[in-house]
């Protein structure tokens, strides 16, 4: 019981954060539904049809909606579909931190030294995360019920609970699978390996909606079993068998993890590669990369940069394939011609690709910026910044070098992803303006720097809270673009979003005003960060 309570305490911020996000998202989406769907049956049916068309663009991320003309169907698609990704990431991060992160921090050793058995420790961790996932999923359901009540309608609480149950089961399943992966990887690699596993499982399921060849493999994916339930939509149900299967996978994975944990050394993977004996070396590295500012930092994070670069290039190519596969049949539907005439500016492939790929790429680049900012704050909290500043190095220089490293990193990723998109578009005979594609890809750099400089300013002032605040800023910025038109937010408020500033460069060219605002934000951010960093205490 004490281990369970400790695990809950260690994860309290995750519970609070994810619970708040889940509640807020379902509340806003359900309230938003009443703002945009209309009140009459005809209005809602028309709304449902347009959403179905729109949803095709996102089928690589979330499944197609069922009855989006109803609040239940709409929220199931718009919120609970998106939650599958959020809860999977939460499960991954929490399990990785609980297993190997806590080993590095010495918490696991302290628990085991207290007489707790390894299987009981795993059981306590899983039970605590299950509790956390249930709380956050219930918050999501509560948000829906509150939102529906605000629209003057009622919604079945049992149905809302069923949606929460499916979501929590997916989260626990991902948590337990990560625990299992953690037994076979080094502490540093657990997140990366589990992340790659989940990305593969996610893509197998989501791409199988477009590519039939993947249908026979999707049984491997927990996301497939989650998709079987859509209790919020009229006529939809909680697929009890699929949900129990998710829980069964969770129990099996946790049991295997506990079994493996019994036989491995704390701090090492179950199967460690043998190390060869070698003579000690007393030589300092002579590699020239360490002598060049910026290059040394890029070199140090070369593997993560490579993963981001290859990952975004590959995803860009996949999005071109999806565009081709989705747009071609849509063009054959005459009823959609008016829709395309209204919303599509010029080349439909470019418009579609610009919308789905660069929308997704913006999210990923914001994520890239946040990971870099998280690194800066970690350097601050673990004392590395203190040691760096014991060298004859000015603090503004540290800030500027960090941002230059971020700029180069973003440039490499953006350029590679642009090349990936361009090459795949060429091979698929998708007509794209190469200049526009280059401009749009390069626009990702100032976009990333907006988050980077805001993060640098926060890291200079309040490093411990930086990642949380920056994440909330990114989330709010994204919601502003997504919900601004629905809630009829004033234009100036919508313009505050970095996602809005990016514009639609692939179809409409670079938004000069948006670019100028982004550059001003970056410039002001750099100066402010340098000033604040110069005045703050380090390591106090």
């Amino acid at each position: 019981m004490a281990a369970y309570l400790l695990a809950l305490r260690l994860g309290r911020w995750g519970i609070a954060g994810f619970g708040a996000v889940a509640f807020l998202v379902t509340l806003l989406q359900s309230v938003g539904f009443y703002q945009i769907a209309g009140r009459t049956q005809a209005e809602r049916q028309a709304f449902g049809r347009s959403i179905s068309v729109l949803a095709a663009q996102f089928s690589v991320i979330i499944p197609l909606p069922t009855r989006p003309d109803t609040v239940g169907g709409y929220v199931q698609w718009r919120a609970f579909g998106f939650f599958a990704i959020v809860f999977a990431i939460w499960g991954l991060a929490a399990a990785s931190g609980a297993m190997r992160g806590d080993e590095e921090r010495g918490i696991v050793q302290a628990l085991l030294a207290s007489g707790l058995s390894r299987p009981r420790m795993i059981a306590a961790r899983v039970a605590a995360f299950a509790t956390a996932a249930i709380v956050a999923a219930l918050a999501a359901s509560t948000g829906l019920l509150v939102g529906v009540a605000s629209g003057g309608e009622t919604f079945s609480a049992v149905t809302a609970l069923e949606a929460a149950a499916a979501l929590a089961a997916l989260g626990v399943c991902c948590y337990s699978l990560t625990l299992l992966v953690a037994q076979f990887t080094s502490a540093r690699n657990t997140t990366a390996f589990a992340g790659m596993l989940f990305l593969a499982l996610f893509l197998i399921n989501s791409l199988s909606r477009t590519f039939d060849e993947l249908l026979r493999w999707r049984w491997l994916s927990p996301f497939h079993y989650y998709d079987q339930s859509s209790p919020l939509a009229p006529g939809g149900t909680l697929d009890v068998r699929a949900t129990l299967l998710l829980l069964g996978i969770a129990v099996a994975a946790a049991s295997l993890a506990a079994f493996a944990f019994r036989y491995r050394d704390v701090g090492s993977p179950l199967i460690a590669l043998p190390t060869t004996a070698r003579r000690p070396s007393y030589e300092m590295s002579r590699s020239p990369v360490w002598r060049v500012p910026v290059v040394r930092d890029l070199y140090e994070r070369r593997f993560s940069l490579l993963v981001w670069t290859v990952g975004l290039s590959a995803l860009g190519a996949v999005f071109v394939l999806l565009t081709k596969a989705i747009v071609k049949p849509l063009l054959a539907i005459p009823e959609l011609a008016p829709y395309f005439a209204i919303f599509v500016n010029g080349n439909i492939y470019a418009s579609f690709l610009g919308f789905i790929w660069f929308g997704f790429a913006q999210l990923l680049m914001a994520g890239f910026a946040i990971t870099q900012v998280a690194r800066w704050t970690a350097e601050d909290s673990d004392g590395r910044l203190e040691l760096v500043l014991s060298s004859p190095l000015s603090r503004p220089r540290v800030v500027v070098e960090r941002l230059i490293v971020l700029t180069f990193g973003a440039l490499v990723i953006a350029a590679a992803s642009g090349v990936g998109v361009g090459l795949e578009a060429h091979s698929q005979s998708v007509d794209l303006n190469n200049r526009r594609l280059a401009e749009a890809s390069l626009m990702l750099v100032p976009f990333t720097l907006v988050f980077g400089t805001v993060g640098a300013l926060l890291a200079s002032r309040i490093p411990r809270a930086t990642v949380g605040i920056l994440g909330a800023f990114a989330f709010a910025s994204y919601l502003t673009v997504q919900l601004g038109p629905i809630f009829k937010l004033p234009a100036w408020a919508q313009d505050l979003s970095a996602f809005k500033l990016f514009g639609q460069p692939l179809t409409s060219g670079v938004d000069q005003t948006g670019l100028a605002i982004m550059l001003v934000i970056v410039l002001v951010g750099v100066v402010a960060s340098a000033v604040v960093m110069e005045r703050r205490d380090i390591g106090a």
Partner: protein
Amino acid sequence: MDVAAIRTSKLSKNYGLGRGLFDLDLHVEQQEVFGFLGPNGAGKSTTIRCLMGLIRPTAGAAQIFGLDCVHDYVAVKRKVGYIPGEMPQFGSLRGSEVVAYLGALRGGADLKRVRTLAERFNLDLSRRYREYSSGNKQKLAIVLAFMHQPRLLILDEPTSGLDPLNQQEFFALLSEAREGGSTVFLSSHILSEVERMCDRVGIIRAGRLVTIADLDELHAIRFHHVELEFAPGTELPVKAIRSAAGVEDVVAADDTVSCIVKGSFEPLLDALRGSTVTNLVSHEPSLEEIFLEYYREAAPAKAMTP
């Protein structure tokens, strides 16, 4: 006239609630080895961080070789080698890469000097930093602090994690650095550490400097543990001993009396007149005991209020 290696004037860093550093006046001469003693949380690391320009004092000033630690912090760092209280994380970097990285921040490190230091402490630089034990991390910190042969070494508990053999080696290295013209500012809570190395010692408690003394002065405050053994059946002169000037902590048991004598032995000997003492043992306290005794006396008067 040489400028002081370290000079602070009313240096204060107030964290509120009585925590921090208050009105610190220090003067460390060049080529001096200065020990800075105090228990955990006394303000040693705060002082060092002020000197390193990592934190800004709320009042007062600190100078290193005449350079202001706040405004000239870059120039200050060129003259300083630093060992932090705790080594940070460098993840998957190898020891050789950490040295190259931090050496490059100083404009380059002397390959030969690094090799000599690493060999001396038997520090395998080809291993990844995360594989290092705490002792090896501390050895790496020593290499980083000494590799550019700085004029001033600011060392925050430098021997923590080192085994006795490596501690010996470290003290030898410190002596060589001093002979080479370096000044050393060394914080510690272990008196034996400063006892063997330092010219002068500053004692800090609750953010306030209690005293600065050279080792001879510290020894002058010296006291003695005394054990007296009386002939069987003798009435113990406990009352007379207790009333003797400079005699404290008198404990009587069976035929023996133990006490502490500060200053002259005359009052105690006067109190023993007429008693049959069969054995008298006196031994000097360790520097640690002197330190604790000094603390006990200094605390109520000087160090409680910020």
